[in-house]
């Protein structure tokens, strides 16, 4: 044995029980409940899972979330369990923020980078128990997370398929959970984690979400997925509960100003042209980079970037008119090209055409005005408008109930 091998640890992953490679795509453990509700029969893909694009009408699903509550199936989200005495140092080397500030029973948001300081993905870190965390993200990262175990006494487990998860979001979400029998759920602060006994199993609830609204995420073993769905919809019947698909969620997350892999940034590991990747600074996430940590992936490159300046600014645009500005070019008022829109929508709640856009630095100061080139079609007739847009500070839609504890009862 070589001298360094004592520092190597192979993560304990048993693939013998995982049969997903035999099927082209997984139905979610909630599939039997989703399928009858999916009147449109439009299924999208999220990694290896079927994921509804919309059940009936994405606008209705959106309004359910903003005015009552809506349920989104989170199961396809990548979930990794990190445990062992080095779980915290492992995560602190992996991600840019200081994970020691995420107390037990709390959730924190972070990004993680490669050595080049470019974002691989963003996601949430759940501090479940002592020396035990769950990392959740949209993309799959098993190889990178395993690579990161070298030199750490940690066990890394892929548990994407072992945990069924639902997001319950909207103003009546808390009331629905109380109705379902979750005692004192109203006492949970944003980013809190609590465990409840439910149908002879454990239900984990976190006050988290991707909608910028009051909301919770529910985590349970897949065997109890259907009963959870049933009990939730029973409890929510008089609270306007609806199932919601991906289209509505996108609308909600853009209103909340959340970034998404594949839209605001290319995950670094899936990017061929390295200049097309983004640093945390270029995504407006400099606040997540903690240089006080002596070592984390990308630290050296990010220190250099901090000194020399970054290339792009991610901004929120309020655009005149009502035409969604998807995929538009952004120009200065003197018509110099400065960037592109990465996500856009008409915001029913803000009553505005809104967009997230990547602009070449130093453009993008709050209040700065631009022209957005929007192409739109009416009955096959294309038109083009150069709409005025301005950079706004803060979030497009930010209801106080998002943070209120306890939330209002309904």
């Amino acid at each position: 044995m070589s001298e360094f091998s004592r520092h190597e640890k192979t993560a304990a992953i048993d693939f013998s029980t995982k049969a997903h490679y035999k099927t082209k795509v997984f139905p979610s453990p909630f599939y039997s409940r989703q399928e009858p509700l999916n009147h449109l029969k439009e299924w999208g893909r999220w990694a290896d899972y079927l994921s509804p694009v919309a059940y009936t009408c994405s606008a209705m699903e959106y309004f359910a979330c903003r005015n009552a509550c809506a349920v989104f199936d989170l199961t396809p989200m990548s979930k990794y369990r990190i445990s062992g005495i080095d779980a915290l140092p492992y995560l602190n080397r992996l991600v840019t923020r200081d994970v020691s500030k995420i107390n037990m029973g709390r959730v924190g948001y972070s990004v993680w980078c490669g050595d080049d300081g470019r974002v691989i993905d963003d996601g949430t870190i759940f501090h479940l128990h002592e020396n035990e965390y769950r990392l959740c993200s949209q993309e799959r990262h098993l190889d990178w997370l395993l690579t990161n175990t070298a030199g750490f006494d940690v066990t890394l487990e892929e548990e994407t398929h072992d945990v069924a998860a639902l997001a319950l979001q909207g103003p009546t979400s808390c009331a629905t959970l109380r109705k379902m029998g979750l005692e004192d759920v109203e006492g949970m602060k944003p980013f809190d984690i609590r465990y409840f006994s439910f149908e002879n199993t454990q239900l984990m609830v976190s006050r988290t979400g991707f909608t910028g609204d009051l909301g919770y995420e529910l985590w349970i073993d897949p065997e109890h997925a259907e009963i959870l769905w049933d009990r939730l919809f029973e409890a929510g019947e008089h609270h306007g509960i609806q199932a919601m698909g991906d289209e509505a969620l996108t609308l909600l997350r853009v209103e909340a100003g959340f970034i998404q892999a594949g839209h605001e940034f290319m995950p670094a590991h899936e990017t061929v042209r390295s200049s097309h990747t983004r640093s945390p600074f270029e995504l407006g996430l400099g606040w997540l980079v903690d240089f006080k940590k002596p070592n984390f992936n990308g630290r050296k490159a990010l220190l250099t970037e901090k000194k020399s300046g970054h290339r792009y600014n991610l901004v929120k645009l309020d655009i005149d008119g009502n035409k969604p500005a998807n995929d538009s070019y952004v120009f200065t008022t003197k018509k110099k090209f400065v960037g592109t829109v990465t996500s856009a929508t008409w915001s029913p709640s803000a009553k505005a055409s809104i967009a997230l856009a990547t602009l070449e630095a130093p453009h993008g100061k709050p209040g700065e005005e631009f022209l957005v080139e929007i192409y739109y079609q009416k009955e096959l007739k294309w038109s083009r408008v150069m709409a005025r847009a301005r950079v706004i500070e803060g979030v497009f839609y930010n209801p106080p109930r998002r943070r209120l504890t306890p939330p209002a009862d309904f």
Partner: protein
Amino acid sequence: MTDTRNHVVIIGAGHNGLVCAAYLARAGKQVTVLEAAEQPGGAAITREFAPGYKVSAAAHLLYMLDKNISKELSLEASGLCFSQQDMKTTALAQDGNHLVIAGDSLQGADISSKDQAAMKEYRRFMDRFAGTFNRLNNRIPPRIGTRDSSDWMSLGKTALDIRRLGRDDMREFLRIAGINIYDVLQENFEHPLLKGALSMDGILGTHLGPRSNNSVFCALHRLSGLQGMAIPRGGMGAVSDALAKAAAKAGATIRTSTAVTRILMEGDHSCGVELFDGEKIAAGTVVSNADPKTTFLGLLGARNLEAGFARKIQNIRMRGNTAKLHLALDGLPEFSGLDPKRLSDRLLIAPDMEYVDRAFDNAKYGEYSVKPVAEITIPSLQDDSLAPAGSHVLSAVVQYAPYQLKAGWQEEKESFTNLVLDTLAEYAPGIREQLVHQELLTPVDIEREFRITGGHWHHGELAMDQFLMLRPVPHAAQYASPVNGLFLCGAGSHPGGGVMGSAGRNAAQAVLATKQTGGE
């Protein structure tokens, strides 16, 4: 009292560590060299392996020592002299019709005039290309993608060196540098024994066969010292002794039997080392002569590195495939058909290239060679300090002996030793009767004795993908590592292995060129 910021700790007193120490001490640094073994020298040592019998325990021929170093550090004044220089090579033939290679001339073995002419041309272009390599050896490799003028200078000089070969030679250089030595020798020569012997230049000390890519590259690297083969008086340890004296004279402190167990960090920079007994030594700069895997994964720990860099270090190819055989003999061995005068040559057992390639085939599948190849010296012939009067020492580099032997070295070492002795006995039938003592070092033994991961003499395979700005890996190829204050100076860095010293000398330059940032 020590000024910590000016204090440089060097981990390992191998020849590169000692060279680096000498240059840094001369430049005014306060230098402490820490060596785990009882004597300085690393894998360039002479030690007793049987009562009264001494041998160069690892490297046994000197052909690459940087002439600048000999001159600048006045190694002759420190006692370095040679028992043999400009050694010839004798390729042993099974039928006793041996071939003597002296530079570009060939004698014996009924060699054809065609081969003799081809040898002149072969040596001309190989020496010319080796000259290009030689110029690379003494240069800090360029970083790619920076705007730093020194990087551009270094890159430009490298390109210019290759272009300067002229149209025809440059084409030939680019054609053969990446291919295998089997093809190149096949193009040039007829005689199997000659081809077998020359192919050894491309594979000694590596995990390559004559048909492997990079074997021409290795041959050029081996020739890049631009000097004949020599044996220092007193064995290879004499080189280290002279270097240690030069380093001490320049003001460096060398502590032996002082193993470093850990490189210490303070914030994002290294701040010293911890010793086996718990003692901590503070230093503004830590320079490691240990191989890159030992340095980064063992002494520093992967957790102090960024993950992508740590993965690159883990992926360095350094599986040793070379064993070392030491025989204490009560008389001069007799090789069938060999003029005793030729016994002070470098003797090769490599009868033809197919033989060498078949020997490698075993190693590919985790087995030792059933018919091994060997490079043999009998240093006691010209140096009576190595063995009792009338007795002799035989030192042989033997291939292939894979580090990760399927059956395990614990079980197989004895049978391999016997097999090597049998192979020797095919050429020197009476050798077993002369045997007083024998020692075989497998790569596992080499790893243990010299603390080299995988027992790989060169601290990492010599290959184009692990050379220049790729050695050991990008972001550590200019001797500075990604960890502030931590440098490499061993054979794992450019220009690699062989008792050369250039890595140590280049590393000293890199240390001196780095602004001391201290506790930033």
